[in-house]
Structures are given as structure tokens and as C-alpha cells.
């Protein structure tokens, strides 16, 4: 879980991907999302994952990107399992091989989805994400809440670790007993975590009030987002690939192995 959170965290860097306009990057990720939603075929998903790997390499974040995928294994496994079970229970079931293939394809698509947004979050600062959302005409109060959530995730992950260390030092054994008693063992972890989160949110609220948050209706920004030629080129390429995908899926369907 902690590794998955790490994969959504921004790390300073300077590469072609980092310097790209955040709106262009968001469009890239959304395009990957669309294509993976349109096509169920493993071949297409593989092409998407390969393209993502290329982008991750260009951004110099390959290792962190792989970590995200690694951290999401529990979710991926869950998707595979649920798919498998549901398909097994459906009437008139196809042969097991087909079920396995389809469940695998579903889990694999989730990998592609998570991995595409991981690249966006790994290479985009919370400020840039904020500016992107404001450009999409989302009220700043919500934007701020969203950025703070992203910004405080690593803090929270660290705090969770400290709390677990404290309670394990008091003889708490988390991986002992049956699932039900195990769940109960998480109370000493969750209570301090929630209390600390509440305390921190009050502190943040006070700090914001001191700085007159929301005093002026119209916000201005120090940095303005501006699309440069290379951003436009990237946007054109992504839109083109969406168009191509739609064409071959719906207008002139082709058979994909």
C-alpha cells in the first residue's frame, strides 16, 4: 500500500516529460485510459504499457513507475479473482482457458490504467495539477482540497509507519490470529492515525485562515500555464491516436489477434 502511495507522489526532475504542459500530460494519460477502455485485447494493452514504459523512461522515473505497478498487485490480483469467479458462476460458461484469458486481460488493463496515471503524478507538481484543475473551471476550494490530499499522502504514510512502530514496541502483533481478531488489532493503529489527521486538519484550517484563504473571489497566479509548440504537437498526436483507435474499433473494425 505504501509503495502504491509513493508511486503517486511527485519527485523533482527535469526531463522532456517534466517540462510538458500538465494539460498535455493529463490528456496523454486520459488517452491511454480511453484506449484501454475501448479495446479488451491483450495485444493492444501491451502496446499501451510499452508506450507508457517509453514515457516513463523519457521522464527518468522508470524505477518508481515499476514500484507503483508492484504496489498495486493486491488490487490487480483482486480484479483477476473477481473476474474469474464471476465468469465461472455465469451460466453457459466457456472453457476454463477462455475464462482465464479474459480475467487476465481485465487485470492487465488495470495495470495499464494505474501505470498511465502514475506517470502523470510522478512528473507533475501538485501546483501544476492545481493549475490544470483550475483551467478546467473547477472552483479553487475543491482544487485546494485535492492538492492538499495529494501533498499530505506521503506525510500520512510516514506517520502510519511511526504509529505501527510505537504499537509494535508495546507488544502488538499484527499478523497473529484469525482474520477477525486481526482486524481488531488494527484499532490501536487507526485511532491515533485518525486523531492525528483531525488535529492536523484543524491546524491547516487555522493556518489558511491566517493567510486569508478565500478572501478574494478571483485568484491570480504567479505562474500561468501556456501551451508551447511542443505541447500542441503532443496534444495533436494524442488526439490522432484516439481518432485512430475509434476508427478501427467502431467504424471499420479490424480483427486483432
Amino acid at each position, binding site marked *: 500500500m505504501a509503495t502504491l502511495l509513493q508511486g503517486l507522489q511527485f519527485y523533482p526532475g527535469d526531463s522532456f516529460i517534466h517540462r510538458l504542459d500538465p494539460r498535455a500530460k493529463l490528456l496523454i494519460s486520459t488517452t491511454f485510459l480511453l484506449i484501454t477502455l475501448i479495446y479488451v485485447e491483450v495485444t493492444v494493452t501491451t502496446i499501451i504499457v510499452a508506450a507508457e514504459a517509453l514515457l516513463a523512461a523519457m521522464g527518468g522515473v522508470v524505477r518508481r513507475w515499476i514500484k507503483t505497478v508492484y504496489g498495486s498487485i493486491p488490487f490487480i490480483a483482486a480484479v483477476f479473482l473477481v473476474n474469474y469467479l464471476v465468469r465461472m458462476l455465469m451460466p453457459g460458461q466457456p472453457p476454463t482457458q477462455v475464462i482465464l484469458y479474459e480475467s487476465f486481460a481485465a487485470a492487465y488493463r488495470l495495470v495499464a490504467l494505474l501505470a498511465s496515471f502514475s506517470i502523470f503524478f510522478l512528473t507533475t507538481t501538485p501546483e501544476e495539477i492545481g493549475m490544470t484543475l483550475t483551467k478546467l473551471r473547477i472552483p479553487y476550494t475543491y482544487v485546494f482540497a485535492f492538492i492538499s490530499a495529494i501533498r499530505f499522502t506521503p506525510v500520512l504514510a510516514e506517520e502510519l509507519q511511526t504509529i505501527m512502530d510505537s504499537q509494535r*514496541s508495546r507488544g502488538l502483533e499484527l499478523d497473529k490470529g484469525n482474520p477477525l481478531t486481526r482486524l481488531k488489532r488494527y484499532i490501536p493503529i487507526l485511532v491515533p492515525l485518525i*486523531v492525528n489527521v483531525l488535529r492536523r486538519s484543524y491546524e491547516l484550517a487555522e493556518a489558511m485562515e491566517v493567510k486569508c484563504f478565500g478572501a478574494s473571489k478571483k485568484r491570480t497566479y504567479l505562474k500561468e500555464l501556456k501551451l508551447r509548440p511542443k505541447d500542441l504537437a503532443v496534444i495533436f498526436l494524442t488526439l490522432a491516436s484516439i481518432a485512430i483507435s475509434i476508427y478501427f474499433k467502431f467504424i471499420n473494425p479490424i480483427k486483432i489477434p
Partner: protein
Amino acid sequence: MIRFESVEYVYPNGVKALDGIDLEIGDGEVVAIMGENGAGKTTLIKHLNGLLKPVKGRVLIDGVDTRNATVASLSRKVGIVFQNPDDMFFSESVWEEVAFALRNFGYDEEIVRRRVENAINFMDLAGYADKSPFTLSGGEKKRLALAIVLAWSPDIIALDEPTIGQDMLQKEKLLQVIKLLNSQGKTVIISSHDVEFIADLEPRVILMKRGKVIADEDAEEIFLNEELLRSCNLLPPQLITLSKELDFIGVRPKLYSPRELAAEIVARLRR
């Protein structure tokens, strides 16, 4: 007895927090681990009960390799009091909070009751037994955190930054508790950069910098070496600085108590 044998520790993010630590801490010793933030003090303490296991080398607690023991079993021997008490409280009352660890360690309810009462009384929290831990003041929370650990009476007690945010009275009380525990034969390990507090305690001092032990001497020896302290972003205790300033009347620089220094000054002036 605690032994660190060329211990190295690297955090998952690649930061090398311990870089070849060799240490031996005997039973009944009082040891202060000093150094600036990020020197590796807390990382070292987390190795004592196996919360962290060495990447290279090994840590032995009474001959037991921490890699072969659970945190729960090591914790019975090594009690760690962490820096921020808010990271541990979850119970409805102070009494329950202290009882939690004792129950985890499997003590009889009767012994739990006795030990909780002893620990609460010992740390001056008798009037708070039924109160919620969340309503306590900063100093009371720190005392409760210590009471929690003292309740199961571990042989080794490690305190991580115990004086941060504490007023003089709390520090005084803490000093007495540490001395008392030591007189009972407990090993006490304190991580701190509170030079004045450590000077009052006069323990063995282990000075750390960037994951390495750079000095391991008596408090006096270390505190007289201003250059060494400054290299770790520490300043000598005021009484040492004062005794150095009084060199011109013949006062020998030393880690005096206030009373000793006063007597020394008077003696020198009379001569």
C-alpha cells in the same frame, strides 16, 4: 548487554542511515546518543527491539540476534519510548493505555492491575487514571508514554528525544527518574541533542554523524571538545563555557555542577 557488529542500515528510499556501527553497551549503563537531526539516532534506537533489522552486520541483545526474534519478544527486554506520544494513544483512559502492553505480553489480570497502578503512581499520574489520554497536557503525555513502558519493567529503556517541548520541571523529573532506574540496575539509552540535560546526567556519550559513531567517551571528555561538538551542530553546556572563560583566575575547565563551580570560583579568588 547490547552489541552492534558493523551494522549498516539503508532506508527503502536509498538513504544510508547507519554506516558501520560497532557498539557495546553493558548492563546498567546510562548512555546518551547525541548528534544533529538525521545523524541516525532514531534509526539506531529502532534496531534495539528489531523494528528495523540491519542490512549488513548484526545486533545482539543479550546474545539474541534481532533478525531471529520478533519485535514483541524483544520489546519485553527493550522498552522504547518514542518522541511523539500522540502516535501511541488510542484507549479511553490512562489506566487502559498502560494496561495495553501488559495484556499483550500475557500477564495475569491481577498482575496487570498492580503494575498499572505502580507505573501510574511512579510517574505522578495517579489522579489521571480515569481520564482520556487525549485530554492530558504535553508534559503529562510524555510522562504517560514513559509510564506505559516502565509498567512492564524492561531491562533496557530507550528514550527517543525525551526533552523536546518539555519545561524545566518536567526535565528535572525525568532526570530523577533516569537516575532512579539506573540505581535499580536498568540500562538507559537516551537519544537527544539537549546538551544541558545530558550534562546534568553525566553519562557516557556516543556522538553520531551521518550514520557513523565519531566519538564515544565520558560526557565531560566530549563536552570539553568544542570543535567536535560544533562539527555536529551542538554547543558545549553553559557551565563548561563559563569554566573556560574563568581560565584567567585559574579555574580548570571541567564539567562542574553549578555548586561545584561556585565553590571553585570562591576558592580561586581567595587564593
